[in-house]
C-alpha cells in the first residue's frame, strides 16, 4: 500500500506532500505547531483540506473528482487524545471489525487487546483507564480495523517515560508490515520506528528521505535540530571545511574543493571553552558568540550562531547571551555534500 498525499489546509497554513512506501513507516518530524497533526487529519478526512490529492496504491482517493468518504478510505487515524468511545474497551476495539460487517468482531478485538497487553481491561470503560492503557487500547482499536494506512499522531505524547518506552517497543513490532505515518517531535521516535523521515517546518516539508540519511546527514540547520544534531556547514578546501567566519574543521571524505559540505554530530560531542584560544590540537576550534541558553535537565544547550553544544550546568552558569566562546569539534568526521 503505497501512499502519496498532497494536502493543503489554508486555514492552518499547511501545504505538505508526503509519500510512504508499501509496508514502510514514515516519521513526520517537526516541532509542536508545525502542522504535522493537521496534515494527518487532512489525509484521514478528519479535517477538510482546501485542496488535496491522495493516491493509495495507484487509486486516487481524493483529487479531481468527488472524494472517497473517510469511512471508505481504509486510512485510520490514531489521535493524540485517543478519542475512545463511550463504550467498553472491548467494544471500542471491536468497533472497526463490526463496522466492516465481521461476525467474529469480539474474537478479533480480544486478539488485538491481548497483542497490546490489555486483555484484562476488556470490560472497563474509557474513564477507568490510565493514560498508557488508553493509548494501548486506541492502538488496538486502530489496528483491529485492518487499516490500509495507519496514521499515528504523537503516539507517545502525554505519557510518562515508562509507558512511552514500553509502547514504543510494542509499536516497533506492530508496525513492521503496516504502511504508517507517525508524527513526532522527538528524533528518538524517528530512529526507533521509522524507515523514512520527513521534516516539517511551518506547514511545509523541508526535508525528506530515508531515516538514516535524514537523521544522520541533515541538510538544513532546522532538520539537524529536529534530528538532535549540530550541523557544521561550510565550503570544502583542502580536506577541511572552511566556515564563514574563517575557522577550519578538518574532515574525512566529502565533496571536492569549493563545494558546499557539512558534518553533523550530537551537541553532546561538541566541547565548549570560555576565554583564550584553546591549545588542544585534537579538536578543531570555532570561535563563536552565545545566542541562546536552553536548560535541559542537568545540562544546558549553549546555542551559538554556527555551532551548538550541550554542556554541564556549572559551566553554563557563567555564560550570558553574547559571551565569546570556543566550540571544539572532533577532527576527521565524515563530511557530506550539501
Amino acid at each position, binding site marked *: 500500500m503505497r501512499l502519496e498525499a498532497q494536502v493543503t489546509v489554508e486555514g492552518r497554513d499547511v501545504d505538505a506532500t508526503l509519500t510512504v512506501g508499501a509496508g514502510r513507516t514514515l516519521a513526520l518530524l517537526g516541532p509542536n505547531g508545525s502542522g504535522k497533526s493537521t496534515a494527518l487529519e487532512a489525509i484521514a478526512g*478528519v479535517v477538510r483540506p482546501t485542496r488535496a490529492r491522495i493516491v493509495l496504491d495507484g487509486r486516487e482517493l481524493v483529487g479531481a473528482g468527488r472524494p472517497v468518504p*473517510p*469511512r471508505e478510505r*481504509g486510512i485510520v487515524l490514531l489521535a493524540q487524545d485517543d478519542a475512545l468511545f*463511550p463504550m467498553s474497551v472491548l467494544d471500542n476495539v471491536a*468497533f472497526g471489525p463490526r*463496522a466492516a460487517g465481521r461476525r467474529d468482531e469480539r474474537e478479533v478485538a480480544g486478539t488485538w487487546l491481548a497483542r497490546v497487553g490489555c486483555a484484562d481491561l476488556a470490560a472497563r470503560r474509557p*474513564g477507568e483507564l490510565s493514560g498508557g492503557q488508553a493509548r494501548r487500547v486506541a492502538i488496538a482499536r486502530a489496528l483491529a480495523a485492518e487499516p490500509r494506512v495507519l496514521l499515528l499522531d504523537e503516539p507517545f505524547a502525554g505519557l510518562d517515560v515508562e509507558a512511552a518506552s514500553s509502547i514504543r517497543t510494542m509499536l516497533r513490532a506492530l508496525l513492521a508490515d503496516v504502511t504508517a505515518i507517525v508524527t513526532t517531535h522527538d528524533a528518538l521516535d524517528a530512529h526507533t520506528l521509522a524507515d523514512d523521515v520527513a521534516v516539517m517546518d511551518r506547514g511545509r516539508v523541508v526535508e525528506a528521505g530515508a531515516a538514516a540519511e535524514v537523521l544522520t546527514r541533515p541538510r538544513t540547520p532546522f532538520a539537524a535540530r529536529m534530528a538532535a544534531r549540530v550541523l557544521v556547514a561550510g565550503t570544502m578546501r583542502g580536506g577541511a571545511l572552511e566556515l564563514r567566519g574563517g575557522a577550519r574543521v578538518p574532515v574525512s571524505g566529502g565533496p571536492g574543493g569549493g563545494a558546499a559540505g557539512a558534518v553533523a554530530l550530537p551537541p553532546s560531542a561538541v566541547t565548549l571553552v570560555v576565554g583564550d584560544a584553546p591549545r588542544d590540537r585534537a579538536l578543531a576550534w570555532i570561535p563563536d558568540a552565545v545566542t541562546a541558553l536552553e536548560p535541559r535537565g542537568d545540562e544546558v544547550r549553549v546555542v551559538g550562531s554556527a555551532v551548538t553544544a550541550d554542556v554541564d550546568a556549572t559551566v553554563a552558569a557563567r555564560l550570558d547571551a553574547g559571551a565569546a566562546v570556543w566550540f571544539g569539534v572532533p577532527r576527521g568526521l565524515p563530511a557530506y555534500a550539501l
Partner: protein
Amino acid sequence: MTGPRWLVPLAVAGALLVALPLVGLLARASWGEMWSLITATASLEALALSLRTSLVATALVLVLGVPLGFALHALQGRVRAVARAVLLAPLVLPPVVGGLALLYAFGRRGLLGGPLEDAGVSIAYTTVAVVLAQAFVAMPFMVVSVESALATHGSRREAIAATLGASRTRILARVTLPALGPALATGTVLAFARALGEFGATLTFAGSLAGVTRTTPLEIYLARETDPDAAVALSIVLLVVAVTVVAVAYRPVAGRAVR
C-alpha cells in the same frame, strides 16, 4: 470563591422570594384530608390523564426534539441564531400566546387543523390536543439540551469513528447518542416536568373536559372555585414532582464527566 458580605441579605431575600410561596402552599394544606383529596375521582382522573399525556408528549419530544437539536447544531451563523430563537420561543412565550398559536395551527379552522377537519380528523377537544400542547412547550428543553451538548462534545470522536469505517447511522447510535446520554436524560426529565405542568396552552387550545383534556393543572384551576383544599392538595403533588424532577435532572450532569 465567596463574595462580599453584602451579598448575603440579598441572597436571603432571593431565597425567601422563591421559598416563601412554596411554604405558603404547604401551610394551607389540610394534611389530614390530603390522601382522600388526592384520591378523589376528579383528582385521580386528572392525575392519570396528566401522567398519560405527559409520557406520550415526552416520547414525542424525544423522537422529534433530538433530530431537531442535531439539525440546529448543523446550521451556522445567523441562520442558526434565528432558527434557535424561533425553536426556543415556547420556552419564554406566555402560555396563552402558545395556546392561541396552537389554536390557529391545529384548531378546527387552523392552518393544518382546518384541512384535517375537512378530512374527518378532529384534533380539537381530544387528548391528542393536550399532547400537542405539552409537546409544543416541552420541545425546547430537549432541543437546547441536545444542541448545547453537541456544541461542547465536538465532532472529533465521530470523525475518528468514520475513519474506522463506520456509517453515519452507526456513529450516531454508538458514539454520539451514548455521549449525549446525560444531556438526553436532563432534556427528557425537564420536558416531562414541563409537559406535566402545562396549563395555558392546554386551556386555550385543548379545552377542559374531565378525563379527556382536563389535566391536573386545569383541575387545580377549576377546583380553586369550589374546593380550594383539593386544589392545594393537587398543587402539592405537582410541587413534589417538580422538586424531585429538578433534583434528578441536575445531579447526573454535575456528577458525571463525559469521556
